[in-house]
């Protein structure tokens, strides 16, 4: 069924009896051409693009819980392509372009809102760095603008411009950045993939991989063995656990990142704002809640909850930037598990096992990458060669010294 304005009218006149389920709930078949492990944003996007753009094949997505129950349902919904390095920026700009056409493409309202993102500048050195970054963005086909102090003040007059430690001197702005309704991304891709014949199998945890003579034959699951010609793993947060079934150790640690939302307030922040120096970023949801976050907790964790010191640290950042935030009540906090890679950048690559492919290491930036991650992973699965924008995301970049280290922190995952 295609969703449209006419459809809403028709259903309104007929008692909303014709909507039906958005996707099927099929039993797993004995084997598939492609199995995607992980029914989150990236896995569902991979299945969708694999079915739509690359191959008409028998495809299944295996999800241990429910669709979109992991990080795609736990992030702060920001999209942007304001990266610096050559290995990253073309990929994220490709992703932003896919976001721009996404809702028409998969016929689902994902509430893509290009409300603009600014990164605040506090020093001359930071302005130089922002200028360089903005030029790198423009060279890769993205948009970037350098705002002065008055332009920022016109947008957000309530900020603490004269903070003694971090006075606001300007900002780097990307007007095409913004926010997306995160759950709707998972639902839209799920519905789109299902409509193209992909089996979305929930409550199906992968418990092992059957590998013989260096080739994958299928996966053991909580619902029995399922054969496959090719298996793609897209389970960021749990990557090390799943790839351990193939005997692989990964260049990453799992860390917990917390996020926060305040009570609903009147319209205050119409874009996205990042206060990098204060380890704080914020946007306002359509329901009025301030959605904000900061640093990861900084120690290995698989618990989807963090600890109070980071709560205090994030809120201190918020108070420094916009002191009136102290009058708002905090409604909810939550945590998600990140694959923190050794250079802060992801991996989309084949493995040394024939037919086994990997997508992960997204650190805390996976949401914005969802469309391009799915597209590039589908490209890799279908054609056995990387997409032109994802060529740098290789496993062996650490061995070859080709790290993509945006923050220049080295092999210290909790600092990226």
């Amino acid at each position, binding site marked *: 069924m295609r969703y449209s304005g006419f459809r809403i009218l028709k259903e309104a006149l007929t008692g909303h009896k014709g909507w039906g389920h958005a996707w099927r709930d099929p039993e797993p078949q004995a084997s598939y051409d492609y199995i995607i492990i992980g029914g989150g944003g990236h896995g569902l996007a991979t299945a969708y693009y694999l079915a739509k753009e690359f191959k008409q094949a028998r495809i299944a997505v295996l999800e241990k819980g429910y669709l979109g129950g992991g990080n795609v349902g736990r992030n702060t919904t920001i999209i942007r392509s304001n990266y610096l390095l050559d290995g990253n920026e073309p990929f994220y700009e490709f992703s932003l372009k896919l976001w721009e056409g996404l809702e028409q493409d998969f016929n689902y309202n994902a509430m893509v809102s290009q409300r603009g993102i600014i990164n605040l500048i506090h020093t001359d050195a930071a302005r130089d760095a922002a200028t360089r970054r903005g030029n790198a963005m423009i060279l890769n086909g993205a948009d970037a603008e350098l705002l002065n102090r008055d332009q920022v003040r016109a947008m957000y007059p309530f900020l603490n411009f004269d903070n003694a430690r971090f006075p606001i001197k300007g900002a780097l702005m990307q007007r095409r950045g913004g926010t997306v309704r995160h759950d709707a991304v998972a639902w839209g891709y799920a519905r789109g993939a299902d409509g193209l014949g992909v089996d979305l199998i929930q409550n199906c945890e992968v418990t092992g991989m059957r590998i013989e003579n260096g080739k994958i034959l299928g996966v053991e699951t909580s619902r029995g063995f399922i054969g496959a010609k090719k298996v793609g793993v897209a389970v960021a947060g749990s990557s*090390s*656990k799943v790839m351990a079934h193939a005997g692989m*150790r990964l260049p*990453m640690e*799992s860390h917990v990142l917390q996020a926060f939302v305040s009570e609903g307030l009147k319209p205050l922040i119409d874009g996205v704002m990042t206060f990098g120096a204060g380890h704080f970023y914020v946007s306002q949801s359509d329901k009025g809640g301030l959605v904000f976050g900061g640093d990861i907790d900084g*120690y*290995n*964790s698989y*618990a989807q909850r963090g*600890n109070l010191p980071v709560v205090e640290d994030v809120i201190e950042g918020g108070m420094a930037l916009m002191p009136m935030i102290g009058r708002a009540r905090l409604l909810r906090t939550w945590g998600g598990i990140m694959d923190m890679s050794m250079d802060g950048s992801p991996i989309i690559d084949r493995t040394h096992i024939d037919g086994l492919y990997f997508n992960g290491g997204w650190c805390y930036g996976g949401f914005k990458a969802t469309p391009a991650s799915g597209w590039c992973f589908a490209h890799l699965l279908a054609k056995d060669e990387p997409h032109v924008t994802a060529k740098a995301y290789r496993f062996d970049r650490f061995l070859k010294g080709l790290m993509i280290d945006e923050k220049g922190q080295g092999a210290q995952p909790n600092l990226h």
Partner: protein
Amino acid sequence: MIIHHPILGPRDAQEFVYLGDASLIGRPDGLTASIEDFHNYTYLRDNPAGAHRELWYHEQGDRSWLVVTRNTVTHEILQVELARDVARAEGRSK
């Protein structure tokens, strides 16, 4: 999280800096190890869900390095040792 320091007793985890997996104690010999050995040492991790031995540095305390065994699923701290003792037991120091 409260880390029970072997010398100083219970201390808040905020006083510490986290480094990562305690296997970092076992640095390969720079004169004999292969590039692959160093790659595996520097970049690859077991990253277990469950008990994890990891290095914490008591920066705002006595500046000792500790090996903390902690459950990464529950954040429960199971054991705390001085990294010096662990390293010596592994034959790292003379």
